[in-house]
């Protein structure tokens, strides 16, 4: 079974560069954490066929971030993917999800995958809409928030983890499935695997290569969220005195 895994080269939110606004251009990229679970699941399911990483670069500047994105993709290749596709185009460096889904769907068709796997959401924007959009674009069924997945007899069966209940859902292949962190424990690649990944192909594509055009009608500005906490730390005294002090503060605040 050929599998395409969606990998977001996400902003590393632990290393946000911040002035008056968030300086996206200077913030490093990393693999969106939950995508590691999607990669792990693909490596387990692919059998003798190939598993492809598919990335659409969303953060600029293009030249600088393409290099970073390739490094991120090497990580996924080291985990066991066979090949990666990186769609890098100025027209995709924006907040449009329609455009992203179109580009991804085009790559999925190009590689001829039977199954698309993705993380439930990406760590930077956390919208979780791309798997559904890609499914709509391809005309395939989608199962989101899967915490368990089986493929048998041309069908996928998943346990879909929703707020108050878990649904056991079945769909015919080809299909799109988004997974949660609970689905598996992503492997840590060996040194040997990391070296081997250096030789695996990363194919770079533009929108023109895919024969699609997009006209985004969306823009976004990012302001750092400044929540001033009081940061009063009680360090001195006996446990008894510290407890007394804490209670005093909380009573002053009127919360107990």
């Amino acid at each position, binding site marked *: 079974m050929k599998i395409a895994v969606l990998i977001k080269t996400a902003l590393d*939110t*632990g290393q*946000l560069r*911040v002035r008056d606004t968030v300086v996206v251009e200077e913030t490093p990229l990393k693999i969106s954490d939950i995508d590691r679970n999607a990669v792990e699941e693909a490596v387990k399911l692919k059998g003798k066929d190939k598993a492809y990483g598919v990335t659409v670069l969303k953060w600029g500047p293009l030249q600088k971030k393409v290099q970073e994105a390739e490094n991120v993709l090497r990580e996924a290749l080291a985990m066991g993917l066979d090949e990666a596709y990186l769609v890098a185009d100025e027209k995709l460096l924006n*907040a*449009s*999800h*329609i455009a992203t889904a179109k580009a991804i769907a085009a790559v999925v068709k190009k590689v001829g995958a039977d199954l698309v796997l993705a993380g*439930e959401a990406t*760590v*930077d*924007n*956390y*919208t*979780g*809409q791309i798997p*559904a*959009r890609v*499914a*709509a674009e391809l005309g395939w*069924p*989608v199962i*989101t928030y899967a915490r368990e997945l089986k493929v048998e007899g041309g069908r996928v*069966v998943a346990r879909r983890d*929703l*707020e*108050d*209940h*878990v*649904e*056991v*859902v*079945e*769909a015919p292949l080809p299909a799109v499935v988004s997974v*949660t962190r609970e689905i598996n424990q992503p492997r840590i690649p060996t040194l040997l695997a990391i070296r081997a990944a250096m030789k695996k192909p990363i194919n770079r594509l533009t929108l023109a290569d895919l024969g699609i055009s997009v006209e985004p*009608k*969306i*823009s*976004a*500005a*990012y*302001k*750092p*969220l400044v929540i001033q*906490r*009081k*940061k*009063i*730390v*009680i*360090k001195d005294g006996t*446990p008894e005195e*510290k*407890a007394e002090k*804490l209670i005093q*503060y*909380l009573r002053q*605040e009127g*919360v*107990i």
Partner: protein
Amino acid sequence: MKTLVVFPNKELLYAASTLGGEVAALVFSQKEAEAVSGKAHKILVAEVDPRLPDAAAEAVAKAAAGYDLVLMPSTKNAKTVGGLAAQKLGVELLVDVLSMRAEGGVLTAERYVFGNKAVATVQVSLPAVVTVAPGRFQGEPPAVQSAVEKLALAPTSRLKIVAVEEKSRGAVRLEEAEIIVSVGRGFKKKEDLQMAFELAKVLGGQVGCSRPIAADLKWLPEEHWVGLSGKKVKPKLYLAIGISGQPQHIAGILDSRIIAAINNDPSAPIFQNADYGVVEDLYKIVPILINKISKLKGG
């Protein structure tokens, strides 16, 4: 302005009314239609199973014709339906929106991004689909005359729901809790969590936890899990005990009024995100707190 509310509830209908103009509701049964009667100008009834995202999205895409905005709740299923419908319609989808206004064919909305460390102000041409973050639009939708209409469609779904397993839900409703005592890896054994439950009891609060306690150690069911992929909470007091304060955890507690933390490691990041921090061994201080607070409440 014409707004279509899908999976309508009081909050969404109120949010739609703040934008002005016509409000319609899309529901999936006659019973739901009755529940929103008098709260939307038009009620569209589509007889499909809304648990099947592809069938529900088909209904949404059909009902959305002629509307400027489609509003939905920020549930996992609604986001899936929203993604499918938005791509079918060729429009953008904004999720977990905190505030919004529409002007001259453009919607301006705010949402948290980057692990809740930043606020994005997004501008998008209408039509668009939006899911609204819970608790942001509090008010009564105005009373109006409702016209009920059936949405004719032959629903098709390639999904089959084989089984539904209810999650064990105790009395835990962290989203609504006023006081949360939350536990992390500082607790050495599952049995020791009893202390936190006792403290929560004397405070009249509920018990939350960080990811490792629910997801890795499984000492508490997931309904206690606070954080980016757990519950997002907004109590007046969040007391984090033995929690180091990973960014994903902090992202779930941003809306707390007061955050207090107990940790024996003075360099724990939680102290940078707390109003009041106590550097102390939780095993020493928690019993004292239980004792003192129960006296306080009793007297």
